Structures are given as C-alpha cells and as structure tokens.
C-alpha cells in the first residue's frame, strides 16, 4: 500500500529514475534503498526526501509555521489515520471537517505534501462512506474532491463520486 503511494508521488513529482523500495516488519514500513547514503525508513521521511529531491521545497511549506503544520498533518496521517478503529474514524473525520471549515488545503491556502498523503491515506475511508455521510463531512468531501482532481495526484486510486449539490436536508450535524 505505502509503496504504491510512493510510486504515485514519484510520478506526480516527475521523478525520472525509479527508486528501489522494500518493506520492513509486519506493518510493512517502506524502506528506500539510497545509492548515495544510508537507507531511509518510514513513509513520511521518504516522501519528504522525494520532495526535496524533486526540488519542490514549497510542498513542505514556505516558512517555519507552514512547515510545522505540514509535518503535523503528515504525522497525523501515519499515527492516527492509519490502522484506526471504526469509532476513531468518526472522530477523525469530525475533527478534520471542523478544521477544514475555513481552509482550502490542510496548510491553509497552499497545496502541500500534507494534502497528498492525507488524500492517499483517507481514500479507503471516503470510498466506504454513504452519500449521506459524505454530506455530514461536507468540508472533508469538498477538500477530498479538490485533491483527487488536482492534476497528477490520483494515479493508483479510483475516483470517488462526491455530489456537488446536497441530497439530504441539513440539520444532522
């Protein structure tokens, strides 16, 4: 799973030479075999490394504040979102929905690596949502739809239909 995600990221970043990956342990943590340095372990670590390699540092944030926010959501993705239980999913979606109320992207007004990895990580959850649930998490759905249509992001994942107009009456959330 993580490996496909990294391949998609590579394609988005336009990295030409294919990297070699392996996985470690039962949780299948990705490992990047690096020719000019020690191997790198961990999805976020490798993703950040690829972004730097592609000379796209703006994807990690332009200033210290933004960089910290990006890191925070990357960490959120791997510690909270991955392997969360059904009950936790609801809280995660609810919190994210409130957070995104006044934001276009996770780091505010600019698109960053946090959007990409959160999108990859949350996809399997959004796919399972009923239309009505998607409407409950309106801001998440809007953000998700936005990211899946961002050029060059989706790659290995099927599109998820998000309705633009509301089907259900409001008042449920």
């Amino acid at each position, binding site marked *: 799973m993580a490996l496909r995600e990294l391949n998609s990221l590579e394609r988005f970043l336009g990295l030409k030479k294919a990297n070699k990956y392996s996985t470690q*342990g*039962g*949780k*299948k*943590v990705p490992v990047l075999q690096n020719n000019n*340095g020690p191997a*790198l*372990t*961990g*999805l*976020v*670590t490798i993703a*950040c*490394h690829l972004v*730097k390699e592609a000379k796209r540092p703006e994807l990690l944030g332009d200033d*210290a*504040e933004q*960089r*910290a*926010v990006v*890191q*925070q959501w990357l*960490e*959120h993705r*791997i*510690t909270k979102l991955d*392997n*969360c*239980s*059904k009950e936790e999913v609801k*809280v995660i979606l*609810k*919190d994210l929905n*409130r*957070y995104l*109320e006044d934001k276009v992207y996770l780091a*505010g007004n600019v698109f960053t690596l946090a959007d990409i990895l959160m999108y990859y990580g949350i996809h399997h959850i959004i796919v*399972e949502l*009923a*239309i*009505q*649930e998607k409407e*409950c998490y309106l801001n998440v759905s809007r953000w998700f739809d936005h990211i899946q249509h961002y050029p060059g992001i989706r790659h290995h994942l099927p599109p998820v*239909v998000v*309705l*633009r*107009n*509301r*089907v*259900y*009456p409001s*008042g*449920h959330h």
Partner: protein
Amino acid sequence: MKLFIGEGNPHCLKVLAALELSGVRCETQLVKHEEKVVPYLTHPVLPILQLPSGQHLFSPNSICQYLFDVSGQKATDATNQWLEWEATNLQPAVLQSLQLVALQGKRVEAAAVMKEPLSWLEQSLSKRKTSFLTDEVVSVADVVLWAALYPLLSDSAFEPGDLQAVRGWFERVCSVSACQSAALRVLQGKGAEALKSFLQKQPVTHTPRRDSPSNSTEAEDSERELSPEEIEEAAQVYSEGLKDFTVVTERKHPVLPQEGKRNVLITSALPYVNNVPHLGNIIGCVLSADVFARYGRLRGWNLLYICGTDEYGTATENKAREEGLTPQQICDKYHCIHASIYQWFQIDFDFFGRTTTQHQTEIAQDIFWRLHERGFLLEDTVEQLRCEGCQRFLADRFVEGECPHCRFPEARGDQCDKCGRLINAVELKNPQCKVCKETPVIRSSKHLFLNLPKLEQDLEQWLQTSTAAGDWTTNARHITRSWLRDGLKPRCITRDLKWGTPVPHPDYKEKVFYVWFDAPIGYLSITANYTDQWERWWKNPQQVELYNFMAKDNVPFHSVVFPCSLLGAQDNYTLVNNLIATEYLNYEDTKFSKSRGVGVFGDMAKDTGIPSDVWRFYLLYLRPEGQDSAFSWTDMALKNNSELLNNLGNFINRAGMFVSKFFDGCVPEMLLNDDDKRLIAQVCWELKQYIQLLDKVRIRDALKCILNMSRHGNQYIQLNEPWKKIKGGAEDRCRAGTVTGVSVNVACLLAAVLEPFMPTVSLSIRSQLQAPESSSRAMLSGPGAFICTLPAGHRIGTVSPLFQKLENEQIEALRKRFGGLQPEEESAGLKTPSNSSVAVESKPNAGAAQHTPASVTADPERAKQLTALVAEQGEKVRALKAQKAEKSAIGVEVAKLLDLKNQLCLAEGKTPEPPAQKTKKK
C-alpha cells in the same frame, strides 16, 4: 505565541526542553487535562503551541520541530526519520509501558514491552560514531527520543537489560541543562508516579496482537521472533510426515462416558420455543457451542453435545392464544422451525430435544421430592390476582394495569415498559385480565420456595473449586459474584398455570413448576430422551466435564439457582465445570427487534443467498467475547471480500492451482531451505496458538490465527513467485516445486483448523486436495503439529474457488430488506431529540428543491428511502457514462432512475413530472 501545557503530562517534557534549548521566547500556560484549547478537536490534547498566526500545533513533535526550525536548525532526512520512528513505534510502546509501571507497578512486563524498540535504538546507536543521534550536537531527534524515554530510563527499578550505547547517549542528553529543568518541571522528582493521573485518562493500550477489538487485520499481523531452534524443530516435525495415525471410526450413538478418556458434556442454553431465534441468539449459544464441540471431536475427546427447545411457560400459552392453537401445537410448530434453522447453520448436535416430555416430568418431580425430603423447600402464602371470569390466577403477563410508579396505563404484571421498574402484580392500579378484560380480585395462594439461603454455604464451597479449576468467562464470574454478594433469598418454584410440569405434591395439585426451576432440568431430560443411560453423564462428576454455553443474561440460573437445586437434591449430580457466557450482539448499532422487523432472524439467513459457512464465519469473527459487538452488513461484505476471498480463499486456491497446472496434479518434491522452514515454523506457531486459545474457548481469537496462517502463506507465495520460477532453469523449477508443495500442505492444515468454523468449506478443501482421512486429527492432537500430510507424489483432485464476492448492491439491498436502514438517522431520532428528526422529515429534500412540502397522503419514510435510492442510481448512471459504457446498458439504468424518481414524487404526495431539464446537470 503561547504554549499550553498540562500537569504531569509526559508529552510536555519534550516541548519544554526544546523551548528552552531553542531560546525562543514564548509564554507558557498551565491548563487542566480536560480543557479544550483547540476548538476543532473533539478530545482535548496537550501540549498545544499557538503560533503567531493564531494556528494551533497539537503534535508535540511538530512543536519541537518548529522551535528548532525558527532557531535555525532545519529538519533533515535523519531527524525526520527519528521523529517518524518515535511517533509510530516508540510512543505506543512507551505509553503502554508507562501505564504498566505507574498504574499497575508491573516493571518486568513494562520492560518486555520496551525490549523491541530499545534494542533497535541500541543497534542504531552502536553503529554511529557521533555523540548524538544525528550529529555531534543535540538535535530535535535527541530531545524527542530522550523525552519519550526519560520517565522510564530515569527509574532505577526499571530494568530494560544491557543497553550500553543507549545508556551513554541518554546520560549525555540528560546533562543538557534545558533537559534537566524540563524533567524537573514535569516529573517534579517523583518519576513515573507524577504521570499517574494523566495515564489513567488514556485508553488502556493492549499488546496489538490479542484482545484488541480493532478491525485492522493488518496491524495484528506483527512479526513474531522465532528462534533458530524453533524453526529447525518445526521443519523436523513437518518432514517426518504423517505416521500411522489410527483412523477413528464414525461417531457411534449413544455416546457414553468412557474410562481413560476425556469425557466432555456440552450444553447450549435451551432456546425458548415461542419465537424464531435471531443472529444474537445463534452466536450466543448454539453456534459457539457447536464450534467447541466440533473442535473437541477433532481433538479426539469423547464428547456429547445436547440442546433442545424450552417449551413450558406463560409465553407459550400466550402465543397459543394469539395463533388460535393449543400450547402443544405451538410447541410442535416452533420446535420444527428451530430444528431446521440450526440444521441450516450446520449445528451438529448429538441430540436436539425438547422439554415437554415424560422424562422431564419424572426427573423434575424426582428432584422436587428429594429437595422436599431434605427440607430445602419453604411454604409461603402469596397475594395474587385472580380472574373470576377465567377461573384462574393470573400470571404476571396475563394482567395489565396502571404503573404504581409512573402511571403508565399499560404496565405489565411483572414490569413497567415505560419506567422499567419491577412491579408486583397486586400493586397495579386498575388491573385488567388480558384475556377477558375483566377486573381481577386479590386472593391469596400457597406456594413453594426453594430455600437458597440454606444452600448458600454448599454453593459457595462448590463455586470456589469450580471457578478455580475450570474456564469461566469473566462476565460469568462477575455476575455470579454480585448475586452472592447481594445475598440469596428464597425463590418461588411454583406457579398457577396449566402449561408446565405438574407439581406432584397433593397440596399443590393445580400448580406447575416455575420455568426457571424446570427449564435447566431440560438438559437432563433431553439426555434421557437420547439414551436411557443418561445418568452416566449427569450423575458422574468424577468422569464428566460439563461445559454450559449461554448469553450473559442466563448466567445466574446456571451458576447459582440450578446448582442449588442439584446440590440440595444430593444425588451426585454433575455440576458445571466451565461456564461460557457471551455478551450481546447488536444489529447495526441498534437492537434486534422482532416487532419492529429490525435484524436478521434465523429463518431469513438462508434467504439471503449467502452461504451458511459465510454466516458462521462472520458471526464467529465478531463473537461478542469480552464486550458487546454489532452486526453490520457493510462489514460483513468487507470481511467476506478481504478475509475469505482475498486472503483465505485466494491462498488455498493458488496453492491447489499451482499443483494442478504446473505439476499435473501431483505434489512435487520439497527441498526445504531457510525461507521454507521459517514459514513452516510461523504456521506451526499459529497452530499452537489456535489450540491453546480453543482449549480455553477463545473462539474469536482462534479464528484470527487461521487467517494469520493463510496470510503468512500468501506472503510466502508472493515472495517466492513459483509461477515465474517454473519457467526458469532446473534449480528454479525445483524451487517452484518446493514452494508449491509447502503451500498446498499449509492449505491442507487450513482445512483441518477450519472444520469447527466452516465445516462445508473445510470438507470441500479436503476433497479438492484428496486429503488423507487422518490428517486433521493428526495435526490437531496434543499441542498441535504442522505435518507434511500431502507428501511428494500425492495426487490432488479438481481445484475450484471456495468463496464468492459480495457485491455492494447486493449488500445494500439486504440492508434495506432487513431494516436497520440508515442507522444514523434512526439513532438521531431515538436518542437525541434535539436533532429534531421530525423537522427533518417534514422538510422537502434538496434534491427536488422546487417541490412543495409533503402533503398529507405522502409517506415521508418511504420518500427518504427513495431519495437515497435515487441518489445511488444516479451515481451508477454517471459512473456508466464516465466509463463510456454501451448505450443500451446506460439506457436500462436510466429507465430505472426515472422510475425511482416517479416513485419518489408519489411518496412525496406529488404527481410525477416528465423528467426535468435540470436533472441532467447534476
């Protein structure tokens, strides 16, 4: 900028150290644990850094990173990697181990939890030449890791083993003054003790492998360390192959206890006859007991599994009146329904009987007389309502009236449905006979009571030995203990009814036994109907081990009341040794309800078209062990598709297909290398776990072991790629042969371990593989052994797929059919009236914005369902169009959509319109 911290919060350690070290100026504020600082987070967390822009950072590591970043130390690949490892690997272990130390004082267990991450750190540090993790100076990585470990490593009583490099590094970071002052501020010199109140508020973390109710199967499959000796031993056992294992002959009825054997008697709580059992009943009793019984037979125990319908009592009389039949006719009818449902679920009883038999009368009356002779019965007068019109005393359920507590007008004679309080029937205001509606009069009537207080001492003595030696589930122990703690009172054993076992005492001619006294005796009488030598099971505690299976509401009758009857009768009865009680199974976040038509009932399961084995699998997968669980259609489809189809079925099918495609259906030669031996050892370890768990009746956990076996198998095939190697040179082809051979043997083991859970699937694997008769028994004997039961040259049969995919549409249709529709809406309507479901229903829906609100003839419930269907169908049409599907195919779906829209209009009380233009633009 402002930093919010909490008292005794270990996460604050790192941010305080980083703050001082970075020299950034920032105000800090101490807030309470439960105080909400970040408005958008549901659960309050600390520490929080409020950035100059007003944004909040709620991840301690990101806060540290930020502080280092603004002071000029940017993140590098190396620091990122350590921070990621800390967050994903170290932190969960630290939290669990801190809880063990501070809350339970278990330092040895805590050290075991920390072993893996600490030895990884030790390895990494000993390879480095720098003083700190990434450099010669302290970086953010050092602060973060040090702070995580500090509360443990600074505790002198915590012994994590020999960690030279870690100790050296730890001391160096400790000597940094910023770290010292942060440590003092958070722990205040009290060590992990200072974190106690914080840790108590955290959810208890378990070892990820067992006991975790988490749905993520992938997380559970943590690698287990296998020692070289273990691996070698497993490979040795495997290679020895199947020795002459005496094939045991067919079960011969009647099964009777045998000298020198393990004699196991299994009962499942007797289902009450007047209703069709729902899924919760099935998993709670008969299915759980069936898995254990099948397992026991495979293990070679001498085992008898009996059950039957409980038929006497008021509820049957009521039902009979409702349906215009006699109680006997009702029992006959429903007994057949029960029997056929259990047959469909493949419940392999040795005997499925009933309680309305002559044996029941004889045995119940015998126990009664023995209790009477020994002075364990009391006589008392009870005031009761009597209906002069019907010429009889009215049992609780035959009388209705106004609740004396809440004035609810339709309270029953035993309980008020509105306020839930227990009522004594004579307290009802304006009582009415349920049958003739006349007002009953109060008359006194003599009754017999079982003198439980007199038996209490004997009971406690027996309970002590039984619960100590046997397997009693935690809930069974709790419930029993709380009954004893409250003190036992005499319990009435007679009732003024006709449909029951008659009381033989001349003074009580008109009365029958109360069902709770009568029903458990059913176990004995049903066995007596099975064999005239029933006493060899039931009056033989020396030779027989008794297992009772039930849901938790039935515990007191099996652990207190019935044992008292048997103890008082003093006839060397077999008493329960192992009491297995489940929690409740809910239906899609609500309760099963026959009256509301919510939930799946036994007779409907087969109409779903989903095979009995898949039902068994899913019910067992979510067997409510330890806590309530809930049946969910989506989850069922998911588990079927991910676990059965993609994991288990995929592996077994591939293993078999390789044999038939590449090796002409003959198992190839196997030359084991280290990879093969490792797999064999892994599978063998899972097998031993499986046996240990099932011996303790941990049915759900044992099922996970099976899935782990095939998961290991899939990984093994994936890694070794026999389908590629078969096309290579001689060496590669030989390798392909070994991998195929080992895989197909794992498949054969899977057939064995699946038998208790999915008997039909097990049988078809065995016939596809032409597995030797004795293979299952051989592998499941003793502690368990994974043996090469299909040796080189063994010819297998025709291989075919075992499972089918459950499609979304199919599942959605089933969900609708069985109610529990849109559980969110329902729960919103029931539980939180503030969400005003009424207002929601009467509003026109936005999909048809120009429509007027629903008129009087409208059906808002139906409209809601249709709205969902329209949306779904619309989605389907759009998807087809997007895929550029064939015109005709699209046309069919569009027609369905239009039809649904018309229905929706009707349900909303409107005349259907020709398709509006705007629908196109959705």
